[in-house]
């Protein structure tokens, strides 16, 4: 595959205006599939969750999952959509082995949700309102694995294997209107929009919303219009861009690639393109052809839906605070600087910090622990930080530090104990014997011993060279196995040396 020419991004923007469109698939986290009672879960072995309906066998009869409709309506409402008074399913007919029925059950001219919008805020502070044309329901396809050949990709494969566990899982496909005026921000708009959808789906609890597991998948449409022209360019559709960073990269890449082709006098083919995460390029897939004649028709096995207005209003009342508004509120409540807050958001720790603050910790302490020590341990263990420790446990730990029972260093040891399942912070302090020695008697004994062993240091301190005290403080901390408050030790050292100062400064 020859690497195509790319035009410099700024030059491409000078010559062309990018026009975008996104199709985001959100996989719902219902207990069962869209049209049958098979479990909506993976990992229990290939083809363990199938039945005649989701395998498209004779005699299978689809039945609509009530919860999936509810989730779709809530997602639509959160995106400001109208909920159709009359909606129905349609068959999208095509032959591909990931779809055993030889059609996908989707929606065509009566989607359940339509005409919404999502306003996103870019890093520059620019607000962009993305108009949403529709959000419709459909069922997911099975999973294909291509075998043989040299690369494991489709090209050169000898045969393919199919696991239908995912076949029939409910999806909501959210389709935007054409996005014009994106200009230089086009790649960031793509990333921020998909992040916004993901965040809303997560806040609603309708999806696990993990992009790395394919719960949220994005197809990105890009076309270029020459400056001064009113005619839209031919668009390409880059399929299955499955991380936020990839959405940004894929949009930027297509702008640069198409600009180079057009500038050299070439034409853009209307086609689907594949995004390659490893090399950061897109490659041509199938051009639009006869096979895209899907012959949609109303699904005869399912009766239409007519969500009552009462039900819709009931569901509207269940909507959580919009994530963007919640972020603004929490940042203000916590008094975090932009960078501090971004750190929490980007680490996906907003819920964890909020719960820790609710359990009594100060916002700054909660932030420092989550994005610091806990994130470090989680990173080393390859797990999510919020899976390591309960917010209430962390709040209890922070309380022990603030009460002077633990130094930061001891608290880190207690945290390890809590993570290792040794109990609550208080229990770990007791069982590991980690509390700070706050008994001045024990400290004074250790200080006197250290001073008597280092008469030269004692002389220096008495001479006014207070920095010499460091050697004694170090010896005492060592004798206390670190379980002493260094500031208090310093005070006592100076006192015992006979040069106690008022208002000690570190």
């Amino acid at each position, binding site marked *: 595959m020859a690497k195509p020419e790319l035009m410099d991004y700024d030059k491409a923007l000078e010559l062309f205006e990018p026009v975008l469109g996104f199709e985001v698939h959100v996989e719902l986290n*219902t*207990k*069962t599939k869209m049209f*049958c*009672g*098979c*479990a909506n879960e993976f990992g229990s*072995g*290939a*083809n*363990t*969750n*199938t*039945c005649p309906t989701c*395998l498209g*066998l004779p005699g299978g009869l689809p*039945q*609509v*999952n*009530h*919860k*999936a*409709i509810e989730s779709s309506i809530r997602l639509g409402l959160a995106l400001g959509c109208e909920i159709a008074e*009359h909606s*129905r399913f349609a068959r999208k*007919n095509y032959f*591909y*082995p990931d779809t055993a029925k030889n059609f996908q059950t989707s929606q065509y001219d009566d989607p359940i949700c339509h005409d919404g919008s999502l306003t996103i805020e870019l890093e520059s502070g620019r607000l962009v309102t993305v108009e949403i044309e529709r959000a419709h329901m459909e069922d997911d396809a099975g999973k294909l*694995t291509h*075998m*043989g*050949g040299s690369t494991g*990709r*489709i*090209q050169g*494969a*000898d*045969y*393919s*294997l*199919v*696991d*239908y566990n995912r076949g029939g899982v409910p999806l909501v496909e959210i389709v935007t209107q054409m996005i014009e005026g994106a200009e230089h921000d086009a790649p960031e708009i793509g990333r921020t929009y998909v992040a916004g959808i993901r965040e809303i789906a997560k806040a609603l609890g309708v999806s696990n919303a993990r992009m790395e597991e394919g719960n949220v998948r994005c197809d990105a449409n890009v076309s270029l219009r020459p400056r001064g022209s009113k005619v839209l360019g031919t668009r390409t559709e880059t399929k299955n861009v499955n991380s936020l960073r990839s959405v940004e990269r894929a949009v930027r890449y297509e702008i640069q690639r198409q600009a180079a082709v057009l500038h050299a006098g070439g034409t853009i083919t209307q086609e689907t393109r*594949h995004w390659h995460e490893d090399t950061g390029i897109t*490659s*041509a*897939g*199938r051009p639009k052809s*006869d*096979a895209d*004649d899907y*012959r949609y028709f*109303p699904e*005869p096995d*399912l*009766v*239409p*839906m*007519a*969500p009552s207005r009462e039900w819709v209003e009931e569901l509207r009342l269940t909507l959580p605070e919009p994530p963007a508004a919640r972020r603004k509120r929490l940042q203000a409540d916590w008094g975090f600087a932009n960078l501090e807050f971004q750190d929490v958001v980007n680490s996906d720790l907003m819920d964890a910090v909020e719960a820790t603050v609710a359990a009594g910790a100060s916002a700054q302490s909660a932030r420092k622990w989550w994005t610091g020590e806990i994130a470090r341990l989680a990173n080393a263990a390859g797990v999510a930080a919020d899976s390591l420790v309960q917010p209430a446990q962390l709040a209890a730990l922070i309380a022990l530090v603030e009460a002077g029972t633990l130094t930061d260093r001891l608290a880190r040891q207690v945290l390890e104990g809590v993570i290792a399942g040794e109990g609550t912070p208080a229990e770990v302090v007791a069982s590991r014997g980690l509390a700070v020695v706050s008994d001045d008697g024990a400290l004074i004994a250790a200080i006197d011993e250290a001073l008597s062993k280092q008469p030269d240091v004692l002389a220096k301190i008495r001479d006014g060279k207070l920095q010499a005290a460091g050697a004694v403080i170090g010896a005492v901390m060592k004798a206390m196995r670190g379980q002493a408050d260094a500031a208090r030790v310093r005070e006592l050292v100076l006192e015992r040396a006979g040069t106690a100062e008022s208002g000690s400064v570190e």
Partner: protein
Amino acid sequence: MSAITAEQVAHLANLARIDLSPEEITNLTLDLGQIVDSVAKVQEVATSDVPATSHPMPLTNVFREDVVVPSLSVEQALSGAPARAGDKFRVPAILDEE
């Protein structure tokens, strides 16, 4: 006279993966043409106040609760497969797409 052509029938046959002989295409063009003509007659009767109907029964909102029911066993699921490899269906490679 219907607007169905032999080319359209051949196109549909291709989309539906049905292998038709030239003779079958000729016959089906006639048959489908008659069906389309018959439907056109009904359309003459239907005035603009008659909405298009996709479902004959005045029934809506038939839902199933989100409760898991037992699936087929892997053996049952694969029993009709033309080919299998382990617990997966084995299908010919698809070469027309990257």
